[in-house]
């Protein structure tokens, strides 16, 4: 059975290499996000891998919710959103970070292309 989009707070867009929030996910909640707290090692220039813990959502209540890198979300971070508009998370997708294509992926693809 396929997962609904709103089962996860974030989605990775491989075309634009962008990790974004899913507005339906936040719209379904009755509380507000106070902030998104990045893990210490998550910074511009760092490399991330699928399933890696990226951040925690700090909800208005007592809960914290982890944000893990979705499948395909791999590469070097070139930009982290430093002005997240938490107030609008329930209304529109918000970009959280952007990757450049990882060197490893690029090499693999290159090798494939070299095959006769």
């Amino acid at each position, binding site marked *: 059975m396929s997962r609904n989009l709103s089962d996860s707070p974030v989605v990775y867009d491989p075309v634009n290499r962008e990790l974004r929030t899913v507005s339906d996910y936040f719209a379904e909640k*009755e509380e*507000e996000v106070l*902030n998104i*707290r990045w893990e210490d090692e998550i910074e511009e220039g760092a490399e991330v891998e699928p399933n890696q813990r990226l951040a925690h959502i700090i909800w*208005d209540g007592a809960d914290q919710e982890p944000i893990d890198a979705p499948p395909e979300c791999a590469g070097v971070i070139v930009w982290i959103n430093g*002005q997240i508009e*938490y*107030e609008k998370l329930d209304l*529109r997708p918000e970009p959280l970070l952007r990757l450049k294509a990882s060197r490893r992926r690029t090499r693999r693809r290159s090798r494939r292309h070299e095959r006769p």
Partner: protein
Amino acid sequence: MRFCLVALAILLAGCSLFSTSPSLPGGYLIPQSEPRSTPISKRIYLVADNQVHNVYNEPVPLLRTEFADKLVQTVIRPVQLDFYGQDFLEWLVKSRGKRSLIVHLGDSCDFSCTGEFKRFSEIMSQAKKGWVMAPGNHDGFFFGNDHRDVDKGDWPAACSNAGEPMTKGRFVRLYLAALTLQEGPGYQALARHLALDRSDLGDLEQIAPLIPTQGNWRYGEESGNDHAFLRAVSWRIDRAHPWRSFVVQEVDMSRDASELPSPVTVRAILLDTAQYDMKPVLFPTSHNAGVTGELLDDQLTIVKSWIESGPRQGRFWLLMGHHPFGSLTGGTQKAVADLRKSVKTNLYVSAHTHAGQFIVHGEDRDEDNWLELNVGSILDWSLEFRPLQLLITDEGERLLLRSPRYTMHEWLREFEGVPTNDDEWEAKPGDPDYYLGHEDLKDLDAHDTEVRLKNVLLAAHGRLLGFNRTQAGAAPDAHFWPPCCKSDEAVLEEIDRMIEDHRLDRKTEFLLELDRFERERPVEDPEKRRKFRLSQAIWASKYDSVHLRKPLVDDLFIIFPKE
């Protein structure tokens, strides 16, 4: 005469004063991206100066004429803004108030009529998480300026068809009644304390007379362990001197849980800066509530006792009030400065100017300089509101204020497609509902001014009905039709007749019928009507800000006429 003009400009400009500001010391940082930090407070939404205005008033000499409007443009707003403008507050309360607490920083009303406050409280009652407010000069003083006769003269004339003049004492009663009607542990504990938690009491007017003339309530242990936003309320109603009445409150902005190793609490005190020793008067301006804010010793003593009774460690305080610090009396400035120092806060939050800004207080380059966050109006351009939350930075454990400034028109454009591009929705020069400017109100006659304004309002109703038809098949004997009419066409014809009728009382009477008709009739497309109303309010506010229909500097597109 020139002196009079200048004096009147100063007194009416209570809502648009600016002051020069010294530098912010180097110890403050203004980062362009969010530092790694931990939230220590909930997010609250700050909103101010919505000024519900009674559009069915009788003429008000001097203060509602071209003469006064030329000096201060909020004296006569476009009628579309008065009629549709509260849709902004309603949108915010419904949209953001379902998740967050709302703190209103005063001037809920315009003339200060009980009917205006009732309308305001109906809107605010939709804030599911709760709301509180700090009183402004329009909440208890006639047109935000002074206390005057409530039985005859301008004040009852202005409040015609909107209840009665709302003195400061009356405001305190109505506001406390509105608090007791809210859900949530703090509000309900207050209601229980006042024995007002009865099921037979569901109306402001019923509850207000039952509010005692003074009280000092604090949310206590017996109230349970629930997190209560409203923590303390103290008030005094002075019947002989209503301007000395006050209501001061303490609210708890703390989070339910914290990731920090030791507990941290965040409290805010909502000061009542519209409490006066001397009766506020129009002249001299130093005693005008629109120009000067004040708070008296009785209020101050209570605030000090609240601060002293709380823990010193791990508590952050915020001070909030309607009037900017710079417009407080000298004595009140000193008192607020002392309070600020005693709670070690470098932030005071205010409103009143209608033009949001940060203000730095202190000497030129003094290390003790501190900050005031002034919140703009949600009614007058640029339709501002702002969330506020406090955090602690990971690096250096410093206090971090996060308070992005948002504007209604940007939110509505992005999320609602408002204002729409429908060319015919917008009033153009030459249309009967085009916005009246100074040039159209060229005399001092308050009666003639109201006749012109009512004609524009009638024409605005015509446009509203023309584009938002009543649901097809509505029975001619349905309850919502005005007595004159049984169809939209008949209503539109009656609107045209009333515009030609020179009798002000007939216009007002019919406008009241139209008001009820508009609230009660079913329309073909409710969503279209909602957007239509918001579009009208945005155009009215925007063009009022520049006195004419013209593009603002940040308008993106302009279509030129065909040759």
